[in-house]
């Protein structure tokens, strides 16, 4: 975990630097990015082949590629923040909760992004519609309507899923940045001071929250940080 919680400028920037400096967080980010990117690259073109296979890579167009990269980055950030928050709590450095809504929102974004690929052109919708005992004409019409929607609105659904995930990431970042601030870690070092000599100050954010006095004491007394204030991985 990072051994210092210096904030230079915006708390969000400090949180990003803190996460980027932590070895475990970097590993989580990289692993999630690769896994989600790989999975999306195969699953998105599923509607072309109706198979989960490497042959789907032959149908990756610029739109799918751009979405895959952006979605993987956003998902990696959301999950890294979740892990970071849990580790912060376990290390008793923050008394605030991790963002609760980020996990379900992220899962919803994944489902929404894959709906067009899996519901268009596959036998899933005809099978489900067939369970309702409709007449042949009604069955054909209903199937056509549902699958046509997913076939023609795929870009919209992908954009919506990405927006949902980005919103989830922004919300999580804000919550964690504020939580770190309220734990008394918004210290600004004077020139030449060591970390242990710094006096934590209250953040500018006027929203109420836990004082985190114990966490402040812990961070000031933490022996790990170097004199330059660089975080410990």
């Amino acid at each position, binding site marked *: 975990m990072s051994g210092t919680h210096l904030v230079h400028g915006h708390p969000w920037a400090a949180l990003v630097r803190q996460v980027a400096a932590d070895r475990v967080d970097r590993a989580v980010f990289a692993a999630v990015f690769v896994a989600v990117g790989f999975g999306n690259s195969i699953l998105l073109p599923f509607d072309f082949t109706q*198979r989960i296979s490497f042959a789907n890579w032959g149908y990756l167009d610029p739109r799918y590629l751009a979405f895959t990269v952006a979605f993987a980055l956003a998902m990696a950030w959301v999950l890294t923040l979740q892990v970071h928050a849990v580790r912060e709590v376990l290390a008793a450095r923050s008394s605030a909760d991790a963002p609760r809504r980020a996990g379900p929102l992220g899962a919803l974004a994944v489902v929404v992004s894959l709906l067009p690929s899996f519901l268009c052109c596959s036998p*899933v919708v005809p099978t489900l519609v067939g369970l309702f005992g409709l007449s042949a004409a009604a069955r054909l019409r209903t199937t056509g309507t549902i699958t046509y929607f997913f076939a023609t609105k795929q870009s919209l659904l992908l954009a919506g899923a990405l927006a949902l995930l980005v919103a989830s990431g922004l919300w999580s970042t804000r919550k964690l940045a504020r939580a770190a601030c309220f734990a008394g870690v918004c210290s600004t070092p004077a020139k030449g001071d060591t970390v242990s000599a710094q006096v934590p100050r209250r953040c500018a954010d006027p929203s109420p929250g836990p004082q985190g006095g114990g966490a402040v004491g812990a961070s000031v007394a933490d022996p790990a940080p170097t004199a330059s204030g660089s975080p410990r991985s």
Partner: protein
Amino acid sequence: MSRRSAPNRATTARRPAKNRRANEAARQAAAHRRRLIGMGVAGVLVAAIIAVVAVVASSKSTSAPTTRSTGVGAIARNGSFTTASGAQAAIGSLRGHPTLVWFVTTWCSSCQAGTQALAGEIGHLASRGVRVVELELADDLGQSGPSITAFARQYAGAASANPDWTWGVASSRLTATYDPAGELEIYYLLDASGRVTYVNSPLVSTMSGLLGAVAPLTGNGHA
């Protein structure tokens, strides 16, 4: 009642506060662990749903339709369609040559991909005496898609003009007969006597199976 000294009272007062903070931290840590486990379970569920969909898609594509008139081994039931040139034709008129009858919707991704793939194989099929009849499902299943002619030009290119590749639109009755489940694409391989020998979808992913089914129909060359 004996009075406690001030320092002892302060020490006693700090102990419950410290215990409360420790309990609070432990409670939050447990809550976060539960949340992580929940996220993990949700992730597994999403992966399981994806796997189920993939398995359903794969299994449905290899099963024959439920109607007796269009199952493997049955004589293909007659039905009418309109060719791209406006002529009326019927399934029964296709006898005499092995024929691939493929029903598609012109707005379906796998149909587009399959047509592109078929354009690469049409020469091979034609050399073995197999004719291809690609029919748009009646009214494109009630949705607006490109016409079969525009679809053919866009996805088959120059190969769409191959004389062994017929384009057309299926009648409503033909659609209901050969696509009772409302799938966006399904194809039937008929032998020269009009008997159904192979049924599958999507074409793009089952091309090798189709070519394998064609081989016994044509022997060394033309039927």
